[in-house]
């Protein structure tokens, strides 16, 4: 079974600084998708960024980028120029590309990000 590990329960960053959230996963598959979700205090889960495992290029979305290391099974999220609105719980998630498992999204335990002004 696939597992996702986020080893940092909490992180803090100064406004305008850069922070990296860690995520590792365990799988025997070669084709899969990885996601980072953000959950602010409003509780609405919002997709931050996604990565297809077959793509070598790291995904970027404005101030958010990932460092995808397939061999190391690592998928970290970098937030540049941190803003107060980035404060939230961040979840890393994995989904197999295999048909029989394709519907199941496996989540990590989450990392609380605090942004200091």
């Amino acid at each position, binding site marked *: 079974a696939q597992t*996702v590990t*986020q080893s940092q*329960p909490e992180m803090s960053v100064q406004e305008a600084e850069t922070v990296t959230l860690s995520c590792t996963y365990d799988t025997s598959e070669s084709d899969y*998708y990885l*996601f980072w*979700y953000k959950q602010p205090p*409003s*509780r*609405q*889960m919002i*997709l931050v960024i*996604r990565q*297809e495992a077959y793509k070598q290029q790291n995904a970027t979305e404005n101030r958010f980028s990932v460092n995808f290391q397939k061999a190391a099974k690592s998928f970290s999220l970098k937030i540049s120029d941190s803003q107060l609105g980035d404060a939230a719980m961040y*979840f890393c998630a994995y*989904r197999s*590309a295999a048909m029989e498992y*394709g*519907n*199941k*999204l*496996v*989540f*990590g*335990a*989450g990392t609380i990000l605090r942004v200091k002004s």
Partner: protein
Amino acid sequence: DVKVTQSSRYLVKRTGEKVFLECVQDMDHENMFWYRQDPGLGLRLIYFSYDVKMKEKGDIPEGYSVSREKKERFSLILESASTNQTSMYLCASRPGQIYNSPLHFGNGTRLTVT
């Protein structure tokens, strides 16, 4: 924008009560999901459905059942609520054939069982 609506934001029920959590999505998505969120455990899949009247157990289905009579609605049922079912419940949906599509979530229902 996809809208996933959960009928209650907060719910307080007594032990032994039958509890219904309702979820409706407006984008004709084939797949719908119920997750529970607990501190330190992240989100865990309870049940999902890939079509009307179809359901599959997730990782923690014990004590729960689901119903999907219409495509847009997916209900989670606690047959006899227990205190260990106090949690945040999140509903989500996504299209069936687009495998890299993300989940779209509702705002969650925080259920307290006393």
